[in-house]
């Protein structure tokens, strides 16, 4: 077979490598915190997530001390309530989801052959908001302000009536913006995987971990919005008495459970699938053979991802739902074991067909197998409705969920730390310490959680701060408490190993496991010296010379083409090169914006409105300032990248990565809106008398029609403005069309509001009016956002930064505009829908 020539010839021009290193030079000293590229943000992120693992885990140790013996009075019930709420919330929201995104931020670009993620400042912003907000959220424990309603915060326990004070508000607002941070990470990951893969890395050559993170990114997009909405609704109820969950006023506390578990159950898979992806990467290397059933594993990831959205009600079997509907969810809960099982069999087959290295990552993976499979089996038991009724809210469930989460997530993450540490520091962690850690954790987890099954079956309810002597629970609880400290010892060994042996190296050129994927190529702050042409799934195994070729600059884009940091944007399916993406360098703005966002939400919680406003202003100004430089002028010429391919350094429309990110953002936005629509129809379904009940009236028809017409006219005005810009007429006509659109958008919003006020609907009277006002307020938030963006677009137009070619900013704005128009029209249709019944 004739071999294709490499994309770029030797010798490379003098100074090419040095120039590349210069533009990617990381900041020095304390300025390192202004770094935005993935190698630094990924490490910061992992460090912060591990900190929250320690903090959340420490709370578990306190709880186990309290439960070690019967009738213990070490911790009172009030503090205990705060401890278990914070333990669950911190580990689910501040450790589990962030750490999977953190690992992706660190590893994905190298794994898919990109120099960086497509929106480095967005990653940095998400990280700083998460760190600042998470630390403040955790410190509420020290001020007796920590939430105490359990990590799923069911109303009415958390309503204004039964949970006065700020504790619940800290959870609602604190967790709310941490979810926003997670969504920002998901957008980054999705666009990064789909658009920045190395040329030739088609979908069927994509590493399994990239598949897993792509699917998980999509799951975050659809799973997090329901809980964002739920937290907003409960906060509105607590702050303004809008009765979404108050049965006496047409609300329903079970609505919260639906919205929470629409997030909560996929969240389990959001945590598990990346871990499964990590396992699928480690096992072939450790077994020194290709992954058996690559296609089947991708199939399993896709199948599990979608089916996991149909399981949420299995957390609600005890709410008194009809038998048949419970059975549907029971069946779906069992169906998901098919794709999940396929993965396990593929892993076993790979191990069986290879020659397994007995290393620390391997031991952690074996621990994962044992513990996760046990958790999965008790999951199948709990999917059986009658059994669930018996075990519901007992320690059996506590045992099940910890087996699933620790087995399915913590063990693979620790395996990943031991496996990929050389990518960061150029040398492995201590094998000896890794094996000790794994042994301690495996023994500790079983010692802690296996007895909980028995305690649960003996009738011990979860979340009790003590139990009476003589119930037969003493030995099981004592064993669990001892086990918890053994787990802690295992975790401590890992952390000590990291402190002793992990160093951030500059250039890294190692491959101790002889792995086959791209992250094991020589790396520096810029990632790879040249971006490889990928021809197989395990390129380092199939082309041993690739290492040298890439490092000599013989593959794509070995040079600095545009004078700054760059990576390649490729086609989402066949990964053919499309354009050069100019990525931003270090900046303090993401940190400022992150701190401002955290300050806004947290100060709002303590009702410091002026200070919260200042926080919001800091966040907004920082974001607009960083955006100002993010749509640079297109270069005049095409740039050679190798293989005789010449690429532009700018793209707009559907080719642009910004377009893709905006579409993903609209999916998030649409999912929040769909959750609100679901709330409306759910409350309608359970309403005992009329919707709305007399004497409440439906929104005024004439004002509703006026709102619809003006919204559609606003959409037409934007189409007109777009047409004028396309023809490069940055004249008064463009400004007039744009301005008219904004006026129409505001008119539509005011008509929408007037349709409610004209019939004297008040949001605090009934759940119908509360949802109707929330739909209007949600539309109002979009109109305000579009107005801010409109001002920004005008500023860019006036300064010559917007024209027919340089128009990514306008395209983003236009997409959100049309989305908002149609959202408004559908919202009006929803609140008026009872007319047709």
């Amino acid at each position: 077979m004739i071999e294709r020539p490499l994309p770029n010839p030797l010798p490379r021009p003098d100074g090419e490598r040095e120039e590349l290193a210069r533009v990617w030079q990381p900041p020095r000293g304390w300025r390192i915190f202004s770094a935005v590229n993935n190698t630094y943000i990924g490490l910061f992120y992992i460090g912060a997530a591990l900190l929250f693992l320690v903090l959340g885990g420490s709370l578990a140790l306190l709880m186990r001390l309290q439960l070690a013996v019967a009738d213990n009075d070490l911790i009172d019930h009030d503090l205990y309530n705060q401890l278990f709420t914070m333990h669950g919330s911190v580990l689910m929201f501040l450790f589990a989801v962030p750490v999977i995104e953190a690992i992706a931020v660190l590893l994905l670009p190298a794994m898919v052959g990109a120099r960086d993620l497509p929106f480095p400042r967005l990653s940095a912003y998400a990280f700083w908001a998460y760190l600042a907000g998470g630390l403040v959220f955790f410190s509420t424990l020290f001020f007796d302000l920590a939430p105490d309603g359990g990590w799923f915060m069911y109303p009415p326990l958390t309503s204004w009536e039964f949970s006065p004070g700020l504790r619940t508000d800290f959870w609602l607002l604190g967790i709310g913006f941490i979810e926003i941070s997670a969504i920002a990470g998901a957008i980054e990951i999705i666009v990064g995987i789909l658009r920045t893969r190395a040329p030739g890395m088609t979908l069927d050559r994509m590493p399994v971990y990239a598949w897993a993170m792509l699917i998980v990114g999509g799951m975050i997009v659809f799973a997090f919005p329901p809980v964002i909405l739920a937290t907003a609704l409960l906060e509105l109820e607590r702050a303004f008495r809008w009765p979404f969950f108050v049965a006496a006023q047409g609300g329903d506390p079970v609505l919260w459970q639906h919205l929470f578990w629409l997030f909560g159950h996929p969240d389990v898979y959001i945590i598990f699938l990346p871990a499964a992806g990590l396992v699928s990467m480690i096992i072939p290397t450790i077994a020194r053979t290709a992954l058996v059933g690559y296609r089947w594993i991708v199939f399993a990831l896709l199948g599990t991802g979608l089916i996991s959205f149909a399981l949420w009600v299995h957390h609600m079997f005890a709410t008194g739902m009809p038998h048949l509907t419970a059975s549907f969810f029971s069946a779906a809960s069992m169906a998901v074991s098919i794709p999940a099982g396929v993965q396990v069999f593929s892993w076993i087959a790979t191990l069986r067909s290879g020659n397994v290295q007995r290393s620390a990552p391997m031991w952690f993976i074996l621990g994962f197998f044992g513990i996760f499979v046990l958790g999965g089996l008790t999951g199948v038991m709990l999917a059986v409705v009658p059994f669930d009724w018996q075990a519901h809210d007992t320690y059996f469930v506590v045992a099940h969920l910890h087996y699933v989460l620790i087995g399915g997530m913590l063990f693979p993450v620790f395996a990943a730390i031991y496996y990929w540490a050389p990518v960061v520091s150029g040398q492995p962690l201590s094998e000896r310490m890794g094996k000790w850690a794994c042994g301690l954790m495996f023994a500790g987890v079983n010692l802690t959680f296996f007895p909980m099954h028995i305690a649960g079956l003996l009738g011990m309810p979860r979340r009790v701060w003590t139990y009476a002597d003589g119930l037969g629970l003493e030995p099981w609880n004592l064993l669990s408490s001892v086990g918890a400290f053994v787990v802690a010892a295992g975790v401590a060994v890992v952390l000590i190993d990291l402190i002793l042996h992990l160093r951030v190296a500059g250039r890294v050129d190692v491959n101790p496991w002889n792995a086959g994927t791209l992250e094991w190529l020589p790396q520096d702050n810029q990632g790879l010296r040249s971006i490889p042409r990928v021809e197989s799934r395990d390129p380092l195994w199939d082309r041993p010379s690739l290492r040298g070729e890439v490092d000599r600059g013989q593959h794509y884009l070995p040079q600095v083409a545009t004078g700054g940091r760059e990576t390649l944007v490729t086609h989402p399916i066949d990964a053919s090169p499309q354009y050069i993406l100019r990525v931003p360098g270090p900046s303090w703005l993401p940190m400022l914006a992150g701190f401002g966002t955290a300050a806004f939400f947290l100060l709002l919680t303590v009702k410091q409105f002026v200070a919260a406003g200042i926080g919001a202003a800091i966040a907004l100004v920082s974001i607009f300032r960083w955006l100002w430089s993010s749509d640079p002028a297109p270069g005049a010429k095409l740039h050679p990248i190798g293989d005789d391919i010449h690429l532009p350094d700018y793209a707009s429309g559907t080719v642009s990565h910004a377009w893709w990110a905006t579409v993903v953002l609209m999916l998030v936005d649409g999912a929040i809106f769909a959750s609100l629509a679901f709330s409306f129809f759910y409350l309608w379904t359970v309403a005992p008398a009329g919707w709305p009940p007399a004497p409440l009236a439906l929104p005024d028809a004439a004002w509703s029609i006026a709102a619809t017409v003006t919204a559609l006219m606003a959409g037409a005005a934007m189409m007109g403005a777009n047409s004028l810009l396309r023809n490069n007429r940055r004249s008064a006509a463009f400004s007039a069309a744009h301005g008219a659109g904004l006026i129409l958008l505001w008119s539509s919003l005011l008509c929408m509001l007037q349709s409610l006020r004209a019939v004297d609907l008040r949001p605090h009277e009934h759940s119908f009016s509360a949802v109707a006002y929330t739909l209007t307020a949600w539309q109002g938030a979009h109109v305000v956002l579009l107005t801010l963006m409109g001002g920004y677009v005008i500023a860019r137009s006036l300064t010559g930064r917007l024209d027919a070619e340089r128009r990514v900013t306008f395209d983003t704005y236009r997409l959100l505009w049309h989305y908002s128009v149609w959202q408004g029209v559908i919202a009006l249709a929803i609140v008026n829908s009872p007319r047709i019944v």
Partner: protein
Amino acid sequence: MKAPRFTSTAFLIWGGLLTWAAYFLFVYVFAAVACTRRFGHLSVAGLPIVSLVTGIATVIALGATVALTRFAAQRLAGTSALTRFLALALGALAVICILWVALPSLVLHRSC
């Protein structure tokens, strides 16, 4: 060769499972509304209404899944082997899921 479009490829791969998702949502919402609005106890030709509607929906969903999967397999012929395989395998999984979800309505005589 022109690269395949991402959106249409994604829908072709997911077609079967999305049909299952729509089916699942429909049978769940119908059963829930029937029980909440107190018409779940009604029978048509001796069959409980919820079981009857679930049965009809099952037949339609199965037909749609098979048709969509066949269509996807034809449209994806000539593209990568992985995308075609995924369309077929996910279609098969969807068929199993539909049958599985439909089973309770055959064995449970009381819907509500």
